[in-house]
């Protein structure tokens, strides 16, 4: 028998690589491909008519298929937001910046978006914003095709038009 180690073993390092190969799914693939053409797709619920962006297979509130594809506008309203003052690992945006929920015109739920070209303290619920797309030829059909949203300068939307679309 060998001597026990003088220093007790306190931890074991075991590196492990878990590679993945994602499938976006038919609905998500259509959504992403449309972004390359500056189009934003949603899907409409058969029962309630609600439009989900990005498109979903099933409307979770009524558990019915949402399988009619519709195009929504690339502009909408800030429903809620927060000002980020802490740098997030892997995200090289200068702080402070604004992370917002934007309900696009024609959509019944909001998407997460970055709001720029405005001082963070000036962002407010109800502010009208529009997408800033990557230039033609640079869009590849992924989430970065919309770089961020910026204010349109239109009058604010009244709360009752977006409070149920947070």
């Amino acid at each position, binding site marked *: 028998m060998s001597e026990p180690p003088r220093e007790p073993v306190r931890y*074991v390092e*075991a590196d*492990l*690589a*878990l*590679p*993945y*190969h*994602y*499938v*976006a*799914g*038919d*609905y*998500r693939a259509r959504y992403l491909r449309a972004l390359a053409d500056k189009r934003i797709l949603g899907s409409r619920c058969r029962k309630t008519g609600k439009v989900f962006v990005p498109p*979903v*297979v*099933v409307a*979770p*509130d*009524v*558990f019915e298929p949402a399988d009619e594809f519709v195009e929504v506008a690339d502009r909408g309203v800030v429903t809620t937001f927060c000002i980020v003052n802490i740098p997030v690992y892997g995200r090289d945006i200068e702080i402070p910046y604004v992370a917002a929920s934007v309900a696009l015109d024609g959509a019944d739920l909001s998407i997460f978006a970055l709001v720029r070209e405005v001082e963070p303290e000036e962002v407010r619920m109800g502010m009208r914003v529009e997408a800033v797309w990557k230039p033609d030829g640079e869009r590849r059909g992924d989430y970065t095709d919309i770089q961020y949203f910026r204010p349109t300068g239109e009058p604010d939307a009244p709360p009752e038009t977006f409070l149920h679309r947070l």
Partner: protein
Amino acid sequence: MDRLRNVAVVAFSQAPVVACDEHRTAHEMLYPQVASALEQCGVRRDDIDYQVAGSADYIDGRPFGFVQALDYIGSWPPREDLHLEMDAAFAAYYAWLRMQSGDCDTALVVGYGKTSEGEPERVLNLQLDPYYQAPLGLGPTATAALQASAYMARTGRTDRDLAERASRRRTDGARNPFAQVRVGATPEELLATPWLVEPLREGYVPPVGESAVCLVLAAEGKAERMCEKPVWIHGVGQRVELQTLGSRDLTRSESAATAARDALGMAGLPSAREVDVVELCAANPVEEMILCDALEIEGDGRQPVVNPSGGPLVGHPLMMSGLLRLGEIFLQLSGRNRTHAVVGAERGIAHATQGHCLQHNLVWVLGTERRWT
């Protein structure tokens, strides 16, 4: 409580097992199965009291994937929900326990996993202990091969014995429209396939598969209204053994034997030979032999039909292969099986397992008659 509550399987829906569904995410595969199972028992989503899912985020590689799945299981109106990082057969066991406690009457059990998106051999390595065995890089095929060689050494079973048993399952599986491998194979053909890890050949180990499964459980009173021919749970038992492979006799499954004794005792049956059909969650012919030994169902005299669906050898979708066994027994006993039916079957056993080398075993005994009156 003076007696256990009668609980039945009232609906079951499964997607065919495929190597890779390129057009749908795991959650999207699940939705049609949940919708179909609810339709079968003629209830709406809000008639279900409880829901429980078996899946593993490591399989899909999507953090908190089980939360995302809620939309596809039906999340409104809110209800109690549980998620297990286990085969969904164990999720069904949880649901059964909850129903015994009396605080729910109906439960939805789902299993899903997009196995093709990850590498199961690497993911399942994480089920081993992190100090001594996982760092060796062992995957489930390697540990199954260790078990197989130990079993063959003890019992004298040969390569040909394994080939013959695998060939029977391949022949059975050719009739199962939901199986992934639907081509029969002779023992000679299987003996000619290359070693995957000796003594397991490629022909003895199922390919990686994925599917989505939904099963509905209901307690007496409701079950009869939800299904014309509910299949009642007569008994259930589950036991787990030590994780460390060197600490147990890999050539026997003490936990499967004990779980089966518990389940049969609860069902009031003296032996597993009293049932007509058995579905074992055996991923290779040696696991099937070990389980048949544990349940004492082979040899002379009356024997149940084993794995008429072909079993996991013709389609082994991770996280739901065990629940598929329960669903198969439901289809057999409720007379819904049209392709590989065991005619006149009235009692059956469904088995599920977790971990390497049959570490954790769950045994269900089911029947067409209500157990407790």
